[in-house]
């Protein structure tokens, strides 16, 4: 056993790379594909932990991740993008270069913060916790800087992935029926958001959330 921890660390770093890459991407479709990659990596992480710790429910978690995060959610997103026939993100608030710098900065902050949390009893993968925090911060960055509704949703799902990773590492995932509940919620959330996006597009015939700034005071 070359040590599940090393494998998980590798996967975590891969995840971080994907997240940083998604910050630079403009295309919405490619954004969704990056989500699929993230989900696959997460499923793989869950599987590795399942193997090394022998906890049965980890396998269930891995299968669920595959089913929901890797397949169901991207399917919904692709259908929405197809319906809307819109491919590119308009100019985000931060230019690509600045966004990347901020993203790296956030990753460093994540490493510092994870250091302070010192979850000694957690799964021995040292890299995983900082990466999960980084995912959360980058997800927030995406939501804050992108204008299109779908890209804000992508940011939101990145945050969810980060939290899910923390769960996996810290406590080998929450009790199973809670996990199922969370996955169900995530799916419904994406569904509802998709419906909303379609209605916004139909009402404003654009998905640019700059239109959504009329309710003031």
């Amino acid at each position, binding site marked *: 056993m070359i040590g599940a921890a090393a494998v998980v660390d590798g996967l975590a770093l891969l995840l971080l790379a994907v997240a940083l890459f998604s910050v630079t991407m403009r295309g919405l479709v490619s954004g969704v594909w990056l989500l699929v990659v993230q989900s696959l990596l997460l499923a793989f992480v869950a599987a590795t932990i399942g193997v090394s710790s022998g906890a049965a429910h980890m396998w269930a978690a891995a299968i669920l991740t595959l089913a929901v995060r890797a397949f169901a959610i991207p399917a919904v997103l692709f259908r929405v993008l197809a319906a809307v026939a819109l491919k590119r993100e308009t100019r985000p*608030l931060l230019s690509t270069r600045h966004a990347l710098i901020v993203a790296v900065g956030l990753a460093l902050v994540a490493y510092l913060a994870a250091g*302070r949390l010192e979850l000694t009893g957690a799964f021995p993968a040292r890299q995983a916790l900082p990466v999960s925090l980084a995912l959360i911060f980058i997800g*927030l960055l995406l*939501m*804050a*800087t992108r204008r299109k509704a779908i890209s*804000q949703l992508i940011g939101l799902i990145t945050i969810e992935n980060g939290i899910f990773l923390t769960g996996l590492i810290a406590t080998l995932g929450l009790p199973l029926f809670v996990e199922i509940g969370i996955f169900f919620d995530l799916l419904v959330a994406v569904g509802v958001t998709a419906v909303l996006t379609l209605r916004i597009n139909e009402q404003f015939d654009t998905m640019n*959330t700059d239109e*959504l*700034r*009329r*309710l*003031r*005071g």
Partner: protein
Amino acid sequence: MDGPLPGLVLTWQLDGLSLLFGLVVLSISAVTTVYAIGHARHHHGFPGSGLLYLLFIGAMLAVVVAGDGFTFLLAWETMSLASFGLVLTDHRRAGVREAAWSYLVMTHTATAFIVAAFLLLARTSGSLAFADWSARAPAVDPVAASIIFVLGLVGFGTKAGMIPLHVWLPRAHPVAPSHVSALMSGVMIKLGIYGLVRLSFDWLAPGPAWWGALILGLGVTSAVLGVLYALMEHDLKRLLAYHSVENIGIILIGLGASIVARSLGAQAAMTLALVAALFHVVNHATFKALLFMGAGVIDSAVGTRDLERYGGLLRRMPITGLCFLVGSAAISALPPLNGFASEWLTLQSLLALGRASDDPLTALLPLLAGGALALTGALALACFVKAFGISFLALPRSPQATEAREAGRLELAAMATLAFACVALGFGAVPVVSFIGQLVPLAAVPTAGSALGLTTAGAGRLFVPGVALVLLALAVLAAIVPRLLGPVRSHIAETWACGITLQPIHEYTATAFAKPIRLMFRDIVRPVRDVGIVHRAGTRFVASVHYRSHIAPVFERYVYLAVKDRLVAAAHVVRRAQNGSLQLYLAYVFAAMLTALLLAR
């Protein structure tokens, strides 16, 4: 009955002070209700207004007999809400809504101050019952006592209409129907005084001298400024409202003097001053309610509140005229009536306080307050000569005034009873003062009501019935003696007006009557005057002259409106924080999370 919070019981308490104020509330409410029934044919309120009126009276009674903080506040605000509803009866007239709103907001802010004061008291004594407060009064540490005193002063002062906090009074009373403003001005503002008396004599131990001096100072300002603003008004009800401010000033002078005496330990002066203040509370309730009822009758007879449109009403409304005359004489503190008796007592108490304090400064302050009180009395006389003279005497200035008809029987009955009360309280000053002397729970030194007449420690004596009797006898003499020189006849002729027949336009107007005083006190009152002259087209000949003068509403503009505008401006600045951008809202959540984590380190 147990209240809504654990360990909170709605208790009631009836001691001397509550009895006195209860009597005032009951008697004046009874008379105003009779008046209201009579007045109803002019003034149909909204369907529930009769019920609300009874609730208003009931609430005032409840305030006086409340036994603990919570019940007191319940009754206090129910009273405010009921009167707010009544003030809004004819909300279609211009300015009624703003007046009612400013009234309720100021009263509610005052209640907030009272709540704070009560809770501080509850903090030291551990309970809300008044009995515990007075029992543990000495235990309250001086700093907290001073804070409680100031909070209570602001809270009760606003309700009483003390000068810096009086702004709602001249706005709310005139717009309210007269039977409501009679009750509000006659009785409701007295409950502010009731609160102040409870606060400074019952709930707090004798404090430093500056407490009393503060009230004395505010009393003097209220009295002088109140009467000055009243003089400048030509809206009858606003004039009477400002007079309420003035009379509250006089009561506060008495109250302030008694509190100073209490802190100096001069028992005799304290009792005398407090009795003087309470006697003036009773007196003011009678003549102010009478005057407001009179104003209400005239308003419904002539259709406007503007003095400049009145005139010659004594011929058309003789009984109202007589009652209004008695009320005006009483409020101007003219002998044999009750106003003079209470002002005499207040002056004596100021003198007694002056003599009681040893160091010269605190001796001088009450004496100067006495001077201010005399000024107020004289100005009040001027104001009511104007009010009565312009509205009741000489020629009617408007067609409506010419056709004015006398009020209904019930209204007249109500006014007559109060007029009689003014005379009775004046003549019966001795027994009334001794009755109040016993009621006041302090060490009532038997100074105030000896058999023969009002005597004070300083050997000042006043026996009102005696003076009145002599006055009457000499008046009869003055009428009879000249007849000894043979009969004379009197012929009716035109008033001499330099050869032209007298027109109403020649008569003196209210604004003109007050002009000398306005010019004498111009830097206090700051009149604003604009005169527009319209020439006939192309010629130098004057077609018409428009003269408008009003008094700069100093307090309203520089204090209240300034605060309101700044508050609204600040609100506009803060509102920009909700500018609709989701990104900004996310930043707020993120910032909140970071601060929470930092705090959690």
